[in-house]
């Protein structure tokens, strides 16, 4: 256990570094990151993924330990002055941060284990730079929620952004789409970074100190608070993939190597939500209602748009990425509701809504990591992500199919899945809000409920498609027909994630105390939000539900029903294998099956006005007669409408701006020197005038 090494590393500031579990594990994170990078640089290509993966998994486990310790009530504060010039590094893990540290840690551990198996057989990234970036990314991911000062947060944030960019670009040599995805990601994540930077710097300038304690103590003017919140919301929103800042997400998450996709989609996007909670609720302490109605609206739009795109997507990983947009939308919807209730004097409901949002972060991390790893297994086995070319994997990859089904159950928010529990909490908080606040709430809540409901319904459609078309029925291509089951490490990782999902689904009350602590840390109102043993009880609301009992009851009913039919059917009636019913005309080929596209067609037609799909039909007639059709091709694609409507004009403007470049920089050295000269003199002039 490299914790010992962690000891003398932490020696930099042993003076005020209390020796606790959290301290040791955070130190271990730092050390393991170093070890991982070292391993990536020195070890040979074959062995590289194993060492790096082990180090990353270690980081994940350490993070998990730290988070759980923080959630069980331990406090941790540390100041490492020597580590960062001028300001030094401040770390603090409170239950709120601990929640996110734990989530990231768990996801990282599983994904790293998965990555070891994934890299076997020449799959996945094994290049030096990529492998070196992985532990750095992991460490930044785990440490970012532990930052207790603006400067520390920003440094870790940028570190995370750069490392993840390297990881996303891992396969850019083989596929041009990767480069494009990386480009989108780089632009949007840095625009977001700038927004966060501006917001927090304004805030800390006003507060006169950059540690979170200073910020909490400060009392900026309402106008400034509003500006800060909007800037920060834009920044963190772009990280969480809120519409219309989501454009990078479906590209990057689909094009990144699958273990990385899992980390991005299950761990990194959460930090967007963390940032909004930390700054909006904790530091700024609630603020005014319109902030949260804005958050609510953004969340609702993201949830609907994301799941609509997912429902019509034919690319498995793209579908999962859009479902991430949807789930982040639901989380932000919960945050918005929480803020709205808090600002209209209903703290209990606010706590409930926030608890729902946090629990959904956890549940989403569980099933989305599982789904992405399973999808990665499919991609590794078949070489395609196109649902229209998959199918029949139930027989070829039975374990992966079952694991994907577990994840899909959670993602479709059906009982007894883990997604259902958090959406149930969310709905409870929304439903009981009706008598609470005034007309605004009364108009907003039904809309919110309707959005959540429609989202749930469309999620069912999307994941029935993903599972039924992608894994069931018969193979639609040779690649799918010759698929082979994933190697044990991958299955083990998926198994861990699936176990977590099942646990969360059946015993959500187990995380009740931790959840209550996290919520208390965010709202400064410590109270138990959800309790109860077998059945889920809420503070102040009569609604109860017990996923465990539901699952047991359904199982019992199935067994009873099976026995009863056995008895009723008597001695006869042995199940017999028969050919498919083909209306008498020859066995149906696999090309006669419904594809993902045809499955989604009715939905696409219903939401025509929103999605604006592009269809084109080209008919090639026979040579002898124009009336005889030789070939007919029908193509339909659903482009991301926001991207077309919003980003195309911006890109055009940027291009026009770029044309100025040659004019200013025409290659003459004198002109460049002149720029410098005039710059300096101008600056001096300004100083002279102002002073």
């Amino acid at each position, binding site marked *: 256990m490299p914790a010992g090494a962690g000891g003398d590393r932490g020696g930099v500031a042993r003076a005020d570094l209390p020796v606790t579990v959290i301290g040791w594990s955070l130190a271990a994170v730092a050390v393991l990151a170093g070890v991982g990078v070292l391993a990536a640089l020195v070890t040979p290509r074959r062995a590289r993924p194993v060492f790096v993966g082990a180090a990353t998994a270690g980081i994940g486990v350490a993070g998990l330990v730290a988070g759980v310790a923080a959630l069980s009530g331990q406090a941790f504060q540390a100041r490492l002055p020597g580590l960062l010039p001028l300001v030094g590094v401040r770390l603090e893990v409170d239950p709120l941060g601990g929640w996110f540290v734990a989530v990231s840690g768990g996801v990282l551990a599983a994904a790293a284990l998965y990555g070891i198996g994934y890299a076997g057989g020449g799959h996945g990234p094994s290049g030096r730079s990529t492998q070196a970036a992985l532990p750095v990314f992991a460490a930044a991911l785990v440490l970012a929620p532990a930052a207790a000062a603006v400067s520390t947060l920003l440094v870790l944030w940028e570190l995370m952004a750069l490392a993840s960019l390297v990881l996303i670009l891992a396969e850019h040599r083989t596929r041009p789409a990767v480069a494009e995805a990386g480009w989108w990601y780089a632009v949007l994540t840095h625009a977001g970074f700038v927004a966060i930077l501006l917001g927090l710097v304004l805030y800390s300038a006003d507060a006169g100190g950059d540690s979170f304690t200073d910020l909490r103590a400060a009392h900026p003017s309402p106008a400034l608070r509003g500006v800060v919140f909007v800037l920060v919301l834009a920044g963190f929103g772009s990280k969480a993939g809120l519409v219309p800042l989501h454009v990078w997400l479906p590209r990057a998450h689909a094009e990144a190597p699958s273990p990385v996709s899992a980390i991005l989609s299950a761990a990194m996007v959460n930090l967007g939500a963390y940032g909004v909670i930390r700054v909006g609720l904790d530091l700024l302490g609630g603020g005014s209602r319109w902030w949260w109605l804005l958050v609510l609206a953004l969340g609702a739009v993201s949830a609907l748009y994301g799941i609509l795109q997912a429902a019509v997507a034919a690319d498995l990983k793209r579908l999962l990425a859009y479902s991430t947009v949807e789930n982040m939308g639901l989380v932000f919807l919960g945050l918005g509701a929480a803020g709205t209730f808090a600002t209209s004097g209903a703290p209990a409901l606010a706590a409930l809504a926030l608890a729902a949002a946090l629990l959904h972060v956890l549940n989403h991390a569980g099933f989305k990591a599982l789904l992405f790893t399973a999808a990665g297994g499919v991609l590794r086995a078949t070489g395609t992500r196109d649902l229209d070319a998959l199918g029949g994997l139930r027989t070829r990859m039975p374990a992966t199919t079952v694991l994907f089904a577990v994840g899909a159950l959670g993602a479709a928010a*059906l009982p007894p899945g883990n997604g259902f529990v958090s959406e149930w909490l969310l709905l*409870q908080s929304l439903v009981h809000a009706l008598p609470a606040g005034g007309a605004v709430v009364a108009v907003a809540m039904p809309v919110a409920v309707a959005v959540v409901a429609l989202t749930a*319904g469309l999620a069912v*459609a999307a994941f029935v498609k993903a599972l039924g*078309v992608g894994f069931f029925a018969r193979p639609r291509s040779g690649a799918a027909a010759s698929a082979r089951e994933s190697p044990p490490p991958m299955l083990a990782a998926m198994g861990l994630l699936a176990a977590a999902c099942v646990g969360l689904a059946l015993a959500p009350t187990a995380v009740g105390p931790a959840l209550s602590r996290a919520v208390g840390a965010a709202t400064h109102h410590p109270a138990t939000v959800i309790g109860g043993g077998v059945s889920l009880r809420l503070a102040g609301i009569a609604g109860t539900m*017990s996923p465990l009992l*539901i699952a047991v009851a359904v199982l019992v009913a199935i067994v009873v029903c099976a026995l009863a039919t056995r008895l009723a059917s008597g001695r006869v009636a042995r199940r017999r294998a028969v050919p498919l019913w083909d209306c008498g005309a020859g066995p*149906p080929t696999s090309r006669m099956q419904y594809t993902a596209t045809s499955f989604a067609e009715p939905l696409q037609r219903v939401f025509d006005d929103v999605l604006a799909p592009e269809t084109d039909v080209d008919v090639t007639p026979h040579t002898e007669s124009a009336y005889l059709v030789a070939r007919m091709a029908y193509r339909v694609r659903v482009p991301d409408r926001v991207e077309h409507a919003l980003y195309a004009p911006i890109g055009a403007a940027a291009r026009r701006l770029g044309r100025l470049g040659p004019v200013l920089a025409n290659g003459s050295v004198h002109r460049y020197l002149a720029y410098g000269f005039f710059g300096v003199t101008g600056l001096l002039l300004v100083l002279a005038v102002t002073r």
Partner: protein
Amino acid sequence: MNGAALIATTVQVVVVVTGAPVLVGLMRQVQARLEGRAGAGIGQPWRDLRKLLRRAPASPTGTGWPFRLAPLLLVGTSSVLAAVTPLLSTASPLDHTADLFAVVGLLALGTVTLALAALDTGTAFGGMGASREVTILALVEPTILVAVLALSARVGSTNLSEIVSTTLHDPLRVASPASLLAAAALLIVVIAETGRLPVDNPATHLELTMIHEAMILEYAGRDLALVELAAAMRLSILLGLLTSLFVPWGIAGADLAMLPLALAAFVAKVAALGVALGAAEVFIAKLRLFRVPELLAGSFVLAVLAVATSFFFLA
């Protein structure tokens, strides 16, 4: 109390299982009479089921556990629903297990398993049916949950028994616009969920117009019997739920003495509703699939109006 409640719940399940096919038979009989026919009698669905249970189930080439499991899961979820919804007694021991949201979720779970089974067969009709079914399911969800919101807003709880007993205690509430609108919205939703006219035609032979039927074309014998039974159970549970929510009179509490009365009331109410639905189906034709969203949007409007009234008339 618990023993009595347990008995009541078991009676509930037994009544639903045995009575559901009879309800279907009753609706068919009403339609037959209105069409000037004699009709096969209300026992006919049970005769069909008895015969189907004795016949061999088939597992077509290429189908696997999703196809095999779906009928059992359908009946399983339906019987759990029959146990948790307060049809005869509000004192179900399982009441804390599932509230209205969970009930909606279990209904959706049943639909989804059948859709997955249909996709598992890999036939064109199966895929078509599954695609249409989940589309309608997705569009129905908002109406249901918003109507639930309208119902539970005043009670302050989404637990079924609480809603029912609150309605029992002040009957005037039933006639309030909020609950009437909610009732209308939920009725449309129930029709869509159970695949009756004008959304789906349960008696069609034309594959291209099918929704629910298209998904079960490959089932035979015992499996088919289970699917049919589950469909009938879902119909009667949903109709029963409607009656419990909007005309709950006669529902027993914890004491067994009330149970026979409750049973009679339940049977009468559901039978009346079934007869009304069956008769109405004689007068209407199936909607085009792409006109169905209009119907569901209409029901959604009704639900939203219900919420608005239920909130604003509180003032």
